[in-house]
């Protein structure tokens, strides 16, 4: 499935290893692995032995706060949107990017559609895995609004800062 990041379509080097599947040293062919939050915490806390991945995938009910101590070790956090109408991932992204100032890749996966990309971008996402929108559409979606009213996790200044 296409991965779009920073206005370009790039190769996806990451593999999500589901709970229960074996985590091998060195991981799958391409080497970069993400696991569920529960599994990541289990590995960290020694409940499971194995190589420690530097990617985590959050489900909508996961508590993003649990990742705070480990953010500097992570290169990828995926936020899963099982249904695009489930907006919990936006709060997870805001917490990670804005409150904890996570600087690695924040990737939206799952039911990611063109018309949600603008909100995702403002919430702190910088990468999108989607089969429903091509690069040109995503680039276009990100340009639909040139003014915003409130601060968020992106760098757009709210209108009230531009006015003063």
């Amino acid at each position, binding site marked *: 499935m296409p991965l779009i990041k920073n206005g370009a379509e790039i190769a996806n080097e990451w593999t999500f290893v589901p709970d229960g599947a074996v985590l091998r040293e060195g991981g799958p062919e391409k080497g970069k692995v993400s696991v569920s939050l529960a599994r990541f915490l289990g590995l960290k806390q020694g409940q499971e032995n194995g190589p420690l991945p530097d990617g985590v995938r959050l489900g909508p009910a996961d508590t993003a706060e649990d990742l705070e101590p480990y953010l500097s070790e992570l290169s990828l956090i995926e936020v899963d949107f099982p249904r*695009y*109408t*489930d*907006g*919990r991932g*936006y*709060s997870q992204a*805001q917490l990670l990017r*804005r*409150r904890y100032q996570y600087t690695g890749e924040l990737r939206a996966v799952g039911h990611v*559609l063109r*018309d*949600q990309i*603008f*909100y*995702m*971008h*403002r*919430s702190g996402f910088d990468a999108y895995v989607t089969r429903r929108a091509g690069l040109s559409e995503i680039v276009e979606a990100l340009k*639909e*609004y*040139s*003014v*915003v*009213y*409130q*601060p*968020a996790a992106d760098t757009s200044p709210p*209108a*009230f*800062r*531009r*006015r*003063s």
Partner: protein
Amino acid sequence: MYRYDQFDARIVAERVAQFRGQVARRLSGELLEDEFKPLRLQNGVYLQLHAYMLRIAIPYGQLSPVQLRCLAEVARDYDRGFGHFTTRQNIQFNWVALKDIPDVLEKLAEVEMHAIQTSGNCIRNTTTDHFAGAAQDEVLDPRPWCEIIRQWSTFHPEFAFLPRKFKIAVTAAEHDRAAIRVHDVGLHIRQRDGVTGFEVWVGGGQGRTPVIATLVNPFVPENQILDYLEAIMRVYNRYGRRDNKYKARIKILVTELGDAEYIRQVEEEFAAQRAHEKIDMPAEEIARIHAYFSPPGLAEKPAVSKHLESAKAADPAFARWTRVNLHPHKAQGYASVTVSLKPIGIAPGDATDTQMELVADLAEKYGHGDIRVSHAQNLILPHVALDDLPEIYAALDAAGLGAANESRITDMIVCPGLDYCNLANARSIPVSLEVQKLFADPAYEEDIGRLHINVSGCINACGHHHVGHIGILGVDKKGEEFYQILLGGRADEKAALGTIVGPGLKADEVPGAIHRVVEFYRTQRTSKDEKFIDTLERLGHQPFQEALYAAD
């Protein structure tokens, strides 16, 4: 009133372009209806029984004459010559073609209007006291804060896909005319030691599970209110139920957690906000927005208008209208006028294109260009000199807008019901019109005094039946329409939910039953000063229930 600057104008123009693209992608089949649905909903477009319905935002219920004329043109050119004012202080058009909606939105954008977030699972239009800025009893004008909340909530990236819709109301008067305790968030502006702040109520609501809101914080200073709202919204977005549409409103979260635990979670989230996350709106920006709402320059007037008094003496109908439809104004010699959209025999809240144009003209000529929509679905001219009332009444009455029934029994709140809505179980407009007929004698109605009847065509409660002094709820029983009667609801500062008194009635039994209840009240009240709701609270529901079901 607030005027767009280049930034506001650009956001609305960009929204029109975006929605035009979304409609084109839907019409071409690129977007599936299921994917288009939340997009059109967040732009006020519903698919109703007969056609698409377009709901246009009227932020906190305020309109200029130019805006109201534009709505009249939309009614004429794209609908069937009328519009329907809603309980969210908005307007909706029931017969607009989907392909025309982008053009309608473009036309509205020219007069600083839009349909943003008038529906969908997002923060809806913030409502307030329809007498804001004019009422004698307000501590200050709530509209600037409504505008600040409007801007903050517009396209908020974190809160566009909430578990369910979200409604905020603001009042600044002790007598709550904004029904804040039956809102997801109700804000009551207070002043403490010279600081302005907000009493914050959360988790009220109507619908199928009515709840009176919980006091979550007695005083949040104004410079922290947006941050506090963000904490409320984030807790709701994360923990509100998403497994069942009917349990997804914030009231269910508050109820299931319990007040203490809910408050703890909000306070914890608020305390967790770091300095760099604070919205920190500059004082100059807050002042800039307040400046748009400075009071109109009202010439000094004597408290009594001779012109008004002689007109009253000459015309008893006019005199009655002034007794019923005026609200006290801050300034001596002025009043706020309710233009009733509840004449006998018309669907409550409907106005024709020419009626809208007339009200726009009157507002321009006599009303400092200010028009409000009330949540009771009437129009208001908030700043009118007493001297001008005879001319205003004459013009309104000639256009069928002279009903003297503000907050009286025929001034009902009524949802569109099964005549329009695909959720409804029963028709609500016809039954309300039948009740109206029994009380059509203005002298009789004035004698009854203040009495709110609210009518909903299904348990979703769009007609606010839970908070009517008398509520009427349409239900479907094996294919037949029945109406349950509730007593004792109120939406003001003594907010309470009505209770169903007994078995449902057939449509043709409803007017007689209401009439018996009202007549019972008239025999029992201690004086004409004791309102229906007060007599009901004094005597309890039992005798009223007996009157309701008494055989003829």
